[in-house]
């Protein structure tokens, strides 16, 4: 079981590195579709006149 998991670990890492490589080739702009953009927009309205330097 440990050997199988070890191979799975290596494959997962290789896939991640490949997507990082492709992202790098694109000049650091493409997201490779690995994360979701699902956001709760209603919670993201910035309060007017606020400063980011708390």
């Amino acid at each position, binding site marked *: *079981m*440990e*050997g199988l*998991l*070890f*191979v799975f*670990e*290596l494959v*997962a*890492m*290789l896939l*991640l*590195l*490949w*997507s*990082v*490589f492709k*992202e*790098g*080739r694109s*000049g*650091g*702009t*493409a*997201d*490779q*579709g*690995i*994360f*979701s*953009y*699902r*956001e*709760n*927009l209603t*919670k*993201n*309205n*910035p*309060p007017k006149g*606020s400063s*980011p330097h*708390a």
Partner: protein
Amino acid sequence: MRDLVMLGFMLPFVALAFLSPFAGYLLWGWCGLVALNFYLFGFMQGVPYVQVFALITLVSALMQRGDGTTLQLRGNPTFYWMLVFVVHGLVCATLAYPDLPRNWELWGNVAKTALFCSLMPLLATNRFRIHALVLMIAIGTSFHGVLDGLKFLSSGGAHRAQVIAKFGDNNHLAMVLLMVIPLLYYLYTYSKVLWVRMAFLGTILLMVLAVVATNSRGGLLGLFAVAIWLVYRSRRRFLGALLIAASAYLVILLAPSSWTERMDTIQAAEEDASFMGRVVAWRVSAAIAQEHPVFGGGFRAVQSFPVWKQFQNAPSLLGFVDYHREFSYAPAAHSIWFEVLGDQGFVGLAIFIALIANAFRVAMAVRRLARLNGAGQQWAADLGNMLTVALVAYVVTGSALSAAYFELPYVCMMLLETVRQHQLRMYESRQA
């Protein structure tokens, strides 16, 4: 066989590390977290993976491959606090008691961790790369828990977690597993593909089972802390509570009576020789710091038997602890706070606390910036929240462990800083 497989994977790994500095950086971090050498038994066991990928990353980053990596130094408080901690530690190690076996090794670990962390904001320059970093941490760390979780499940609760030397003992393993649970929850929330999200959900449950399999009482307390903070900091509180209820049900269903009996001893800590031994180690660590308030006794001074004998009955802040027992060995400090106190004095402890407090301040700044940056940036606030949950797990579990120099909390602190810088850049570009 496993060594041959590793060799086969090393070829693309090395090639990708040369082609992309950030890929090399991920490999550098991953090799440290997964501790490859402990899972190989042949000719690939002796390869210094961390050093190899650290070197490749530094070389390829300096060559500026045009893959979006820009080495633009930008000062940040997290880096400055880490630098102060490393420099102060260097003086502590230099002035340490003679013949401390792990003095320079531990200082070297801290310095290497700080070097790794200092490059993070330079290389993780966008959301994709931050997400990839979280993935790397999750893949590298959860590997240790998934196996034990599966064995615990298949043995009906009889399995006891196997601990590799990198982590020390079962309590350390429990701490590491607890720290990765919030990050897995973040990945579950924000991964795009459904089956990947389900895989992270399953991994969280296996992590919980693996924590139970460590038989660590500190781990159980940490599990409660993580559960409470996860629900408190999560935007999906009902889902978080549901996950915790499912985990608790699995634990009750599978945990053997020996585990329940051991956890019951938490209530009778004062009668527990193991726990009281830790309190004596805290007393001795405080005594060392009182003798050397600025630079302490050096890394793991308390675990040197001559030092232990010298300070066993010395005046200490914890002199009120009336527990006397003859030790034939020098026990570990068993607390991140007292470990740093004995090793690096009151000044070192103040820097260490400032470093952790700074991380929570950075998390607040991330939440504020994400709110100001508006639509599409909630992920940053959520990641900041989950990283603080990981640090809460470290602080709670580490309070009874010698784990002050373990790399994962420092990586989490710098990841928080990296997210803050990303959000700050976005805010500044919107204002311009």
